[in-house]
């Protein structure tokens, strides 16, 4: 098991390297000198030179690249051009919130989506199937910020069930934390739920036609267990695959969700970095996102091993 994980990590390294290089290149393609933008175009040449020296921009590009990689290897994501704080600490400070939101969103998406899909597949063209299909169509059609704004409006402003500003509450206040997490998680999970329901429905309808389900029926296995044990376990493979693929979209949606619900997280950091043209911070954030995505992919692969016995180490 460990060996398998180790092998997977090894194959991730080239991917990771490529993404990191991309991050490095992207940020440096920016037209215009960051020094001018940050210091303003009234800056003196000396100030600019000092800025370049401080941020390492005066070195040749190869030098910068290797310095970049070396720093990364030491876990140093660079220093924010504006605040002079290490990017890594800025990221780590808000990462738990983003992770919490993402995981909650995945939870909502799967826990709500799978049963919906099962119900739809069982109905198979009947009324429940149509209801689910229409409902998921609706769910898919909401861009994350639209659903966020509307949810905020209906549930927080009009109904007052949830706080309007849901900045993350500390762990000492679990109920408060839950309440501020609930609506954003629901928002994030909404679209995912629609997709998961569809994937589950399709997979379930496929699986229910297979020979081994016929065998189970011939054994007299009660219909309930056929659906929820014999069939569903085979459909979960597809759900896991989908979740892995969807995660990168989820991250994007979490950015929007964090903005609308005013939650701390990587998303707000990105927006802040963009607005203030803090390219060092932006670069560090891109790296952070890349690492996250790569890790999630690896995690998905590991999940496969648990879910499908046919996958060998």
């Amino acid at each position: 098991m460990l060996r398998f994980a180790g092998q997977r990590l090894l194959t991730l390294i080239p991917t990771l390297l490529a993404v990191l290089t991309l991050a490095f290149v992207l940020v440096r393609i920016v037209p215009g000198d960051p020094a001018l933008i940050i210091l303003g175009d009234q800056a003196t040449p000396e100030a600019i030179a000092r800025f370049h020296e401080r941020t390492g921009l005066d070195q040749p590009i190869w030098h910068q690249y290797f310095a970049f990689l070396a720093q990364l290897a030491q876990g140093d994501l660079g220093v924010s051009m504006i605040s002079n704080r290490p990017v890594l600490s800025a990221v780590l400070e808000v990462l738990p919130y983003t992770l919490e939101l993402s995981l909650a969103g995945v939870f909502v998406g799967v826990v709500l989506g799978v049963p919906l899909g099962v119900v739809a597949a069982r109905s198979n063209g009947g009324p429940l199937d149509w209801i689910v299909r229409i409902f998921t169509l609706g769910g898919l059609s909401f861009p994350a910020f639209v659903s966020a704004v509307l949810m905020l409006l209906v549930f927080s402003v009009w109904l007052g069930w949830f706080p309007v500003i849901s900045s993350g509450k500390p762990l000492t206040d679990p109920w408060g934390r839950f309440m501020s997490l609930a609506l954003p998680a629901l928002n994030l999970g909404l679209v995912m739920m629609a997709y998961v329901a569809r994937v589950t429905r399709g997979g379930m309808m496929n699986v229910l036609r297979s020979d081994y389900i016929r065998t189970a029926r011939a054994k007299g296995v009660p219909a309930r267990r056929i659906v929820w044990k014999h069939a569903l376990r085979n459909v979960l493979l597809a759900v896991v695959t989908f979740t892995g693929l969807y995660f990168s979209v989820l991250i994007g949606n979490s950015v929007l969700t964090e903005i609308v619900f005013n939650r701390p997280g990587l998303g707000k950091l990105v927006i802040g970095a963009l607005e203030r043209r803090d390219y060092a911070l932006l670069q560090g954030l891109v790296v952070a996102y890349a690492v996250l995505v790569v890790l999630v992919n690896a995690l998905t692969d590991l999940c496969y091993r648990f879910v499908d016995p046919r996958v060998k180490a």
Partner: protein
Amino acid sequence: MSEALKIDRRVRRLPPGRVAIIAGAAIMAIVAAAAILAPLVAPHDPYAQSMLARFRPMSAEYWLGTDQFGRDTFSRILYGLQITLWTAFASTALAMLCGTSIGILSGYYGGRVDRWLSAANDLLMSFPQMVAGIIIVALLGPGITNLIIAIAITAFPAFYRMARSAALALRERDYIDACRVLGYSDMRIISRHLLPETLDDIIIVATLWLATAVRTESSLAFIGLGAPPPAATLGGLVREGFDNLLDYPGLAIWPSLAILVVMIGLNLMGDGLRDANDPRVSA
């Protein structure tokens, strides 16, 4: 005679997907008409400000009310639809052309180039869409053209992948071998035989990507990376409405609904096309 059989004697329903395609197309037709005819249909100039008419409610003069600068919301939504639809179509078309052609060529000729391209494509595909969009637009600067390019880049992988796998599958077919034996040029094989086969799939992917493009464009506009002001974008309108959410929620609701309608129309069409194409789906 047939008590045991609960036979559904109703004649088999419409072909699968038909209803969805028609409904979706109808919605899109209305939306597209509204967007294209915006200059004619809009009751007001979307950019005209009026400090006297700020935050007006819905009325006969301002159908959906006005915003913080006295601009007519309805007119702004119409122009916003223009931008959104144009951006979505242009970026999808661009991605379709580039992705499909490169994908087919890559799959058909194979070799090292194909492997590299595939790997690069996988990389692009795994990058969070929104983040990629944000970065590209941030780098290229604001503007509709850059927005189109940014979205096209995020859409590219889907077309590339689909076209490539189609090319790979078809390359092995016997009749392609026969074509080669007959001396047909590669170009001819590709354009006459491969392309038509993949057309169905391309259309489905394109329709679904239109929805994604609308989503991406409006999301980017929401966070300020859309077409720059004073252009009225739907996402930007929602943002402005969001800033005044507590007092004048309507400003956020109407553009949100507009986006929703477009997405529903596109998704309906995409769904319908997919159902119509899938041999296993029953109506």
